[in-house]
């Protein structure tokens, strides 16, 4: 049972990060590697707010998520907006550049040592099982946010326009439709989700400059296997890969676990080159 709970916790974190990758992909058709740095940024912001400024845990978490979202909007206007219409490999590499810049700034400001958020990791007892409050919060956030995101992409005017951008950018610009608003909103949502994952990782494990790279790479893989651009696919990918990942970490070292994860992803992609979900479900 504890193994199942561990898988659930890891799966929820992977799903949050993978959904953020998928959201950006659904709008710009690029993988934004700056999201992996955002995981670290949010954890460090939360640490600063809680430990240095003495703000309460819940408020610090919410503020870190909100600031994370705004940071994403700023990144869109400073970097990605200028690159709309550029070759996708250039945008992907530019996002890697942003990620390098952010990680270097974290290292210069906070050093390479690992930190603890210092928040009590409360436990509630349910029958014979002990559940972490952070896991309950994480699961609730995922259960609430995923359907709302799908609804936003399916029915919301900004969501519909955001989905039209990858294929109809020029037409939208010719007709004078506002492109910045929908894209900025999607960036806000994606970065907020990524920040939420970063904060929860910080609460459960530790805060370090390298945490973003590791979690970002895992969740990017999960998003790809789920079928990039699909919110449901990202969640499905996370649910499937969290089990072997937890097992591999328990019974072998980190190096083997990561290698096993990539081998697993390769096998899935070779069998189903466009991701796990059938086309009908991959639309959202």
């Amino acid at each position: 049972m504890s193994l199942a709970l561990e898988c659930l916790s890891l799966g929820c974190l992977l799903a949050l990060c993978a959904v953020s990758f998928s959201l950006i992909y659904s709008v710009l058709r690029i993988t934004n590697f700056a999201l992996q740095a955002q995981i670290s940024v949010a954890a460090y912001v939360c640490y600063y707010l809680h430990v240095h400024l003495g703000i309460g845990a819940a408020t610090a978490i919410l503020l870190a998520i909100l600031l994370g979202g705004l940071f994403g909007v700023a990144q869109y206007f400073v970097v990605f907006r200028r690159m709309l219409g550029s070759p996708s490999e250039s945008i992907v590499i530019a996002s890697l550049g942003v990620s390098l810049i952010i990680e270097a700034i974290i290292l210069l400001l906070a050093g390479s040592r690992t930190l603890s958020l210092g928040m009590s990791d409360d436990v509630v007892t349910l029958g014979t099982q002990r559940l972490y409050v952070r896991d309950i919060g994480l699961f609730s956030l995922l259960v609430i946010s995923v359907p709302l995101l799908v609804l936003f992409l399916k029915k919301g005017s900004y969501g519909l326009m955001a989905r039209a951008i990858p294929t109809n950018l020029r037409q939208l610009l010719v007709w004078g439709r506002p492109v910045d608003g929908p894209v900025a909103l999607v960036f806000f949502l994606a970065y907020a989700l990524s920040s939420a994952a970063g904060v929860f990782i910080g609460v459960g494990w530790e805060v370090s400059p390298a945490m973003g790279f590791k979690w970002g790479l895992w969740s990017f893989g999960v998003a790809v296997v789920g079928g990039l651009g699909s919110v449901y696919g990202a969640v499905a990918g996370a649910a499937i890969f969290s089990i072997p990942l937890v097992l591999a970490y328990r019974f072998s070292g980190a190096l083997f676990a990561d290698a096993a994860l990539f081998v697993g992803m390769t096998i899935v992609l070779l069998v189903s080159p466009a991701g796990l979900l059938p086309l009908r479900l991959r639309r959202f």
Partner: protein
Amino acid sequence: MTLYVLGRIAFELLLAYTLLLSLNSLILGHAGLWSIGHLGFFGSGMLLTGLLLANAGWTPLPAIGASTLTVAGLAFLMSVASLRLKQDFFLILSVGFAYVVYAANVTTTGVNGLSNIPSVARPLSDAADLWLAGTMLTPCCALLLFAQMRLRKAGFTPLFACLRQDDQLAQLFGISPLFYRALVFVTGSVVAGYAGAVFTIYSRGTSPERCNLSNAISLSATAVLGGAGRLRGDVVGALVFVMLPRILEWVFVDWLHASLYAAQWAQLIFGLVLTAGLIRASRGMATNLT
């Protein structure tokens, strides 16, 4: 600065240029494959040659030949299995391959790699090893460059443009996308594997950190920064990949005496160059040189 140090820099530039030629102009430029883990093939060549020389007692030429052939087989298997994948789907597979090769390097030879490979050059000196490795790598680089220029002149550019953009269009012109993509991918990977084998001769050892994920990503990033599919782009990429870290090391360690934060500043400046360069010239810096 001694002649030997200049020679080492020249060899590193040649190595980076060969890798970028095989990745940027060939795989990314012609086949449109995002082979971000291209350095994995370099790592495979390096590891196999190192093991054959240090543990199995092979002589250099058979060891280089065997490891290059093995890399060719590996690339062929990977291409047959995976070339249906494109863009991000191929990217994650390529990253996975690079990670597995890095893990194999660390597991079999340790974090520091092998260091007990005997010198093969005569007379026994570092300069002779450097000269030998340079002599082995130069013809390969020249051949690749010549082949690429011939391909352009022979009018293959539209073929590769079809291959990059649309499989159905390529088939309409009677081109088999899978065959040409596999051909380009295997050729590029063999070159990277051979470069890895020559690196083992040059350094008389292996270095897993040379093929870690961070370096693999940096190499691909400089390829795109230089200009995907452009021969001038490879020159720019090689200069950025080799010279920028050295210049930054000189500035921070020797000039500013700030060695504590040198790596972080180097990363920051590399990131800034990458982002600003691509915002300024989204098709690569080489396009602004034309």
